[in-house]
């Protein structure tokens, strides 16, 4: 057995991490559960921190010791490729120890309860618990019973805040300030935690969000309830009308089991009415962006041509995902484990 050569450079050779000062917008969160109560300032702070992280990722040796000595545990009750890999890499780039735990089953019915699992991982030394769960609200339960920080990596149909943040970073990098921009979210919004989190962050920043889906896949009361209950969006069932003048078109995955659940008659009619394709994109603004949280069903909710065309930002979304998760882990661990403190004025280096 041979042992490969050691990394020729050490961490000591790496330039420091120039993170934005947090003083101006007082980050005090121990957990990241959703974006529903994020201010514009907080969103901006995450994006600016992510910009710094992108710089780190572009280095020849993308490593900084910002989280050295910290333990990040990814606890996934649901399969995931990109989100889990993205969090794992984010932790490693920042020098944290990363442990991956896969779990299945639910409390009561089988085996260990969620709270017991969380407390066990905490006892092992987890500083941050990155959690994906098929039940809406599960990370909230974990956060209530944990001393460590909890980051929601997707819960049921409820929220997927880091996906929404990486979408926001992708959009902002292309169009700048999202205020007044028309962002069309197309497809199965009813079953989409990605859409729910995106709607909160985009509307908090003043974007005009239009949801286009068959009426069976529009969540109850969305676009029809009193201000403050749900974010203000416009529902436009006709995608051709919705897409008119769009700056960004976000397509959502259409799961095949929804067809069997009789939400829509079938793939053929669905793709006819709701596929994001070149013909439809012609109605949007020239150079409008196309996003998709993945994994894509090409030929169903998005055409192959558009998914891989010039307007597509699907790959950039994945790259931005690592930077966003680095930013989140960094910000969270500054407050994690301790009660919220007055923000330090020190940004600077480490």
């Amino acid at each position: 057995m041979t042992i490969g050569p050691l990394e020729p450079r050490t961490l000591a050779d790496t330039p420091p991490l120039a993170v934005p000062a947090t003083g101006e917008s007082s980050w005090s969160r121990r957990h990241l559960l959703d974006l529903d109560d994020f201010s514009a300032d907080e969103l901006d702070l995450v994006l600016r921190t992510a910009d710094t992280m992108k710089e780190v990722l572009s280095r020849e040796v993308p490593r900084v010791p910002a989280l050295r000595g910290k333990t990040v545990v990814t606890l996934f009750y649901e399969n995931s490729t990109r989100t889990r890999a993205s969090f794992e890499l984010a932790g490693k780039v920042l020098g944290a120890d990363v442990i991956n735990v896969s779990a299945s089953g639910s409390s009561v019915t089988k085996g260990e309860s969620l709270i017991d699992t969380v407390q066990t991982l905490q006892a092992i030394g987890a500083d941050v618990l990155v959690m994906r769960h098929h039940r809406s609200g599960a990370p909230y339960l974990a956060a209530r019973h944990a001393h460590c920080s909890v980051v929601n990596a997707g819960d049921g149909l409820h929220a997927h805040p880091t996906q929404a943040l990486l979408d926001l970073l992708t959009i902002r990098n292309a169009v700048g300030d999202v205020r007044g921009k028309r962002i069309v979210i197309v497809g199965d919004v009813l079953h989409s935690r990605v859409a729910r989190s995106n709607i909160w962050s985009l509307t908090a920043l003043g974007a005009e969000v239009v949801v286009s889906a068959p009426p069976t896949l529009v969540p109850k009361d969305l676009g029809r309830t009193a201000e403050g209950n749900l974010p203000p969006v416009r529902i436009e069932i006709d995608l051709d009308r919705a897409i008119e003048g769009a700056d960004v078109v976000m397509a959502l995955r259409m799961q095949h089991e929804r067809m069997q659940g009789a939400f829509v008659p079938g793939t053929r009619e669905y793709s006819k009415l709701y596929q994001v394709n070149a013909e439809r994109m012609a109605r949007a603004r020239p150079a409008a962006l196309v996003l998709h949280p993945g994994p894509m069903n090409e030929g169903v909710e998005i055409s192959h041509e558009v998914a891989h065309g010039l307007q597509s930002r699907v790959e950039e979304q994945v790259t931005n995902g690592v930077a966003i998760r680095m930013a989140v882990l960094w910000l969270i661990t500054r407050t994690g484990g301790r009660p919220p403190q007055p923000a330090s004025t020190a940004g600077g280096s480490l």
Partner: protein
Amino acid sequence: MSDRIADVSIEGGRVAAVAPRLEARGSAEIDARGLIAAPGFVDLHTHLRDPGLEYKEDIESGTRAAARGGFTTICAMPNTEPAMDTRSVVEYVLREAASRAHVRVLPIGAVSKGRAGCELAELGDLAATGCVAFSDDGAPVRDATLMRRALEYAGGFGLPVIDHCEDPALAQDAVMNESWVSTRLGLRGAPPAGEETAVARDIALAEATGTHVHIAHVSTRGAIEAIRRAKERGVRVTAEVTPHHLVLTDEAVAFGVDAGHELIFDTNAKVNPPLRSQDDVDACVAGLADGTIDCIATDHAPHAEVEKLCEFDDAAFGISGLETAFGLCMRNVHAGRLPLARLIEALTTGPVGALRLDRHVPGIGTIAVGAHADIVLLDPDAEWVVEPARFASKGKNTPLAGVTLRGAVAATIAGGRIVHRSEVPVG
């Protein structure tokens, strides 16, 4: 019901006299000045969990909780294990109650064998054993033909069928009300229409068979309007509403009761039928006030802590409600939405009339001379904080933990015995 200031004397477990001034003849005396003496409350809908689920509640703990809530009679729902679908199980409940219960227990028999919704249980034998009604509660009677046969057959014994109205297809996988709150939380919602179509079916069957159907825990405006129209036509339908559906909305699931705007996914607010919208709550209160809804019933559904300390979807449905019923309902009285007299009626003569319980227990729901001395002393203005750890019920599952209620049960007398006295001196 007439209101007046009076003394009540009790002898041999029965009311001996009611008069402006009675001499205490050396026996125990309760000074109830400043309190309201009302007939003991009657709950048509209590889950005692005994036999089989004693880790949640048993006949002793459940009836002690009832006494603390001011209830002197409770009707025990048959979703026990085994179900109360045969004479022997009902006899067990009656025997246990005779030796261990703090208040009167009237059994409700299952409609179908094993509550499976396939074959009728032996309703005649159950009636002869002392059941006061039939229900598959916890589950609706899905099959319309079985419901029709149950009504026809039960009608022969003069007993009503109580139905939990829910269209299983419309409520599939639902864990809360369908509204902006379910959208916000990403939880599957049950549309009010699922209750309303089931209520409409039962009304049609009651009309067709001429048998009395009692609608359990109504919770939607549409269901109440359907019942109102049916009653106007003379259909034999009665209905109950729970304290929680008279006060709490589905927002309690998201944020808790009297709380802020932080999401908590409160499993203690998970109940079936689910907490609905403010508009539905308003309709419940108005329906109770105008008599469309006959009475208040707690749907007391105690669970063990682990059954609520889990993911929302996996949590059990139900609220432990006996001990908070009066205080919670009093919110509507203090807010001027419901007269106190109507509230007391809805907890006493209302339920007695709905199931005609005076056929089984003469004088129940009154403080008439000769009736069983079932009396509750109420302090409508006493404030107290709900502390589930101090519940007599084994079920600590309530969304009201830490909430202040105004209106307390100062003492409960069941069959002439003091079965509850508030620890906090009143007055």
